[in-house]
């Protein structure tokens, strides 16, 4: 029971960092801030009294979840359960970043998604009540069925499982980690390095709209892999490249009538399909 207080904090922040939670600065402060593994690493680290290891776990998990996407209410992985459940459990046991990644992916893609989808299916009941209230012009009714009742349910759905998992899961994770054969530990370590490719692949899917743009992707890769540059100078270089790109496209747009370039593009894309 030594983890009572950290488990409490993890459970609480698993609620505060949720996309649907009350937060003074809205989703900007919850889902996009407290819900990110990088931030969760700091908070969980503080709760366990070991900030350095917490942040190292947070950085490792963040790499996998760099492209957590929530579009149309559907999500590929429940990032908040993954952050606080995964990093919390790892901090309660071995504090190993690779284990944190495996646990976070496991929690986010199974338990997290199950709880998330349960809520998204079940809250239709509350929506109907809120609509009835709106039709009567009853503002208080909307507050009850849109805010109060759903928030209580959300709090329970997020706090209880995370709190219980960290309080009770410590022994289980420790036993498994201590008794796992070397091959399994090795696989977990390798997975921690490979899984970030999933998040990065999903980001590529969003930002690369034309295959020719892979040039910029390789440019970034080479700056880091061969140039051994740090991320911060690369962001500055990237900003300059983006500015030059903007100037160049502005000139091109001024030189050529928009209609002709568009039809040429369309023909090119058609040929590209097969």
């Amino acid at each position, binding site marked *: 029971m030594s983890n009572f207080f950290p488990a409490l904090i993890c459970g609480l922040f698993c609620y505060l960092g949720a996309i649907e939670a009350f937060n003074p600065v809205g989703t900007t402060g919850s889902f996009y801030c407290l819900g990110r593994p990088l931030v969760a690493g700091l908070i969980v680290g503080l709760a366990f009294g070991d900030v350095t290891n917490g942040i190292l776990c947070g950085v490792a998990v963040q790499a996998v979840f760099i492209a957590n996407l929530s579009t149309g209410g559907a999500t590929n992985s429940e990032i908040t359960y993954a952050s606080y459940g995964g990093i919390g459990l790892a901090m309660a046991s071995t504090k190993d970043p690779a284990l944190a990644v495996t646990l976070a992916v496991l929690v986010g893609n199974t338990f997290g998604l199950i709880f998330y989808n349960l809520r998204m299916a079940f809250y*239709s009941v509350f929506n109907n009540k809120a609509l009835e209230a709106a039709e009567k012009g009853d503002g208080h009714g909307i507050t009850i069925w849109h805010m109060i009742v759903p928030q209580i349910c959300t709090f329970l759905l997020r706090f209880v499982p995370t709190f219980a998992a960290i309080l009770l899961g410590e022994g289980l994770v420790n036993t498994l980690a201590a008794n796992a054969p070397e091959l399994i530990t090795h696989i977990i370590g390798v997975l921690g390095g490979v899984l970030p490719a999933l998040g990065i692949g999903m980001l590529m899917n969003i930002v690369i709209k034309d295959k020719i743009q892979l040039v910029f992707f390789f440019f970034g890769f080479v700056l880091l892999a061969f140039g051994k540059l740090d991320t911060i100078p690369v962001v500055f270089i990237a900003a300059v490249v983006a500015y030059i790109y903007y100037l160049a496209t502005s000139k091109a747009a001024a030189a050529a009538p928009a209609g002709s370039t568009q039809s040429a593009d369309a023909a090119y894309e058609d040929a590209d399909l097969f």
Partner: protein
Amino acid sequence: MANNEEPLVKRADGKKGLTKHDLNQLWYRWNFGWFSSSSYEKLESHGFAWSYIPFAEKFYKNDPEGKARLLTRHSQFYNTEPQVGTVINGIVAALEEGIALGDDIPEEMPTSVKTALMGPLAGLGDSVIQGIIVPTLLSIGMSLASNGSPAGPIFYIISWLVIGVAVSYGMFRYGYKMGLGAIDTLVGEKSMRLMDAINVLGIIVVGTLAAGKVAVSTVVQIPYGTEMGALQDTLDGVFPGLLALIVTMVTWWMLNKKQWSATKVLLVLTAAVIVLCCIGFL
């Protein structure tokens, strides 16, 4: 400084419109409660209605039917990116203000505006926020935190909150000020070119993420003359990060060309790692 109790826009007919306080409240309540009761059926619908409760109390005090109609029309299905999408909230605030003060605006207008704009702005907002700004700031934060330093998370918290709140509030006020004209500027040719350029920055940052965060190395030993040496050392000498690049490109190919779901790709990657570890390659 404009007084908080004075309407922002002076109307010719002398009626009192939205004050700065009213507007801030509309924005703040949207931010606070936009997703609270979300379900797959209604998503952000009731968040919109909830943000209009003080507005309804103020402008429809003596008109319960008008109030019910207002709250009902804002309980219809609605879903967009909540931060960039506040431009819609701003436009709708201008329209609702006009309706409440008796201007010649049909009551269906806010609903059709919301329905028409939520899709395009969700696309724009998701690619800017989730695709570029957040990953770029996170990658800087991760690099500052790579030795376990709290500077990384703290950098992300501060920089993101400043940018995120500025975008959300700025878009809202812009939408209110410009009305429907805001959309022409947002999807206009110049802003699309700017978006393309910002996108280039995003792609370069994604490239650095692939090089910095994907870590794959082989444990295979190959003969160097009479001695055995690590294949990885040779690879590093020729092309550092080659295996990471291959893994990333294959993952992207599965997502993009094969159109596999993220869950399926996750399972494939896990299975591949297990097999390659068992045969002693990784």
